[in-house]
């Protein structure tokens, strides 16, 4: 299979604290890799290392034509900052143009794709609901026309229907546009339903495999140190 990412013996250390230790895995082009594990095992640090933001040892090899989109964890934006969704997206669109790349997808098309109504895009970003704001961040990422999307708990703090819609949207992007998706999640039922591979980080050794292979009661108990409860919706 064609790999978009190959990681070999990746370690990240902050001072005396070894956050990631000797991690090796591969990600197939167009697949959806879920990164799971208890708090503090370095899930966000892994994404940061893959993006080259934190110093690491070992090797990280991305396919040459890769372009990234990144959706961070819930951001804390003041309600009264007069930057609208459109201001934010227009800024991204103009950066794409300045970079001399093709004009990229039209902002209006991206708004339709992620399901942000026009009137919501004119609102100040601090007043958007959690779900709308995450969609806006996804729209921002898509304006860069990425072939790899990295999402750090994209649905944290969003209500159930909002989570479902956003997860469906991300899956559609992966399946219809062939975008490779790397996402961090604590929602094991979402991981089961939406990922093709699962990377489970524990304080000991990391495991990677299909959701069926990784999301077993015994392995989860071993990693999380407690029984994990989740619902599986088979398709």
């Amino acid at each position: 299979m064609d790999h978009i990412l190959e990681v070999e013996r990746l370690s990240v250390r902050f001072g005396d604290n070894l956050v990631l230790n000797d991690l090796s895995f591969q990600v197939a082009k167009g697949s959806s890799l879920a990164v799971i594990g208890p708090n503090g095992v370095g899930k966000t640090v892994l994404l940061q290392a893959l993006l080259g933001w934190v110093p690491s040892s070992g090797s990280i090899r991305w396919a040459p034509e890769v372009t990234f989109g990144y959706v961070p964890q819930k951001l804390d934006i003041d309600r009264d900052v007069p930057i609208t969704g459109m201001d934010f997206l227009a800024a991204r669109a103009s950066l794409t143009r300045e970079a001399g790349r093709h004009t990229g997808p039209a902002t209006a098309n991206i708004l339709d794709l992620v399901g942000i109504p026009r009137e919501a895009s004119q609102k100040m970003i601090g007043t958007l609901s959690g779900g709308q704001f995450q969609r806006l961040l996804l729209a921002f990422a898509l304006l860069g026309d990425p072939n790899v999307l990295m999402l750090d708990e994209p649905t944290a703090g969003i209500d159930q229907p909002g989570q479902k819609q956003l997860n469906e949207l991300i899956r559609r992007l992966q399946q219809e546009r062939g975008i490779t998706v790397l996402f961090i999640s604590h929602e094991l039922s979402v991981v089961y339903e939406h990922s093709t591979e699962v990377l489970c980080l524990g304080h000991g050794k990391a495991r990677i495999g299909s959701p069926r292979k990784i999301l077993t009661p015994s392995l989860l108990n071993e990693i999380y140190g407690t029984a994990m409860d989740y619902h599986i919706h088979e398709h």
Partner: protein
Amino acid sequence: MSIESLLLSLAMAVAAGLVGCFAVMRRMALAADALSHVALPGIGIALALHINPVFGAAAMLFFGALLVWALEGKSHVGAEAIIGVLFSVALAIGSMTTSGEELIEALFGGMGVLRWPELVFGILASTAVVLFMVIQRNKLVVMLVSPEVARTAGIDVRRLNLLFLETFALTIALGMRYMGVLLMGALIIIPAVTAKRLARNLTAMLQSAVAISVFATLGGTLLAAWLHRETGPLIVIVAAACFLASFLRR
């Protein structure tokens, strides 16, 4: 007031309005005030060397901003805390190197005759500040929302931060003649805070801040001539009146 002086003060007002918007949105309102004190030792040294104090202030502010940026990157202490420490030290050194009336002028404005090197510097520096804000506007917006997201959009966040801090420092130096370093912080912050209350999008905020800053500068200058007082404090009072008036709007 001469045409040259008026031109210089208006250029300063436009620059202050634009820089203030991003300073306020980045929650640097107090930093403006504190960073301005870094100018003091520069003023003292310039006066001792018989150089125009504006240039001494500008040089010191340049290094102050550079130091804040470098320390911010090296340590986990936020820019606010670092500026707080720098300010106290600068004030201590500044009060030793500057004395009496000169110190008051440096703090509150109202210096002697405007000479052409200062006029040329002021106009060029204001133009540079305005151009920077207009050209970098989109990058600043993205960095404001999320530095991480900005990085994936290809923005060199560290470099942009340095450039913004230096632009901010240069704007404070621009205000020395009319506002003094202490009051310039107010001209950067008050119009922007007022505009933030009134505006519903970024363009409206930038335009309102510039309009309020120019209005306060013109109004304060006219009042100063009429009342035979220093211009700086009156500019701040007009700006503050605009801020209070913004509460009537909503």
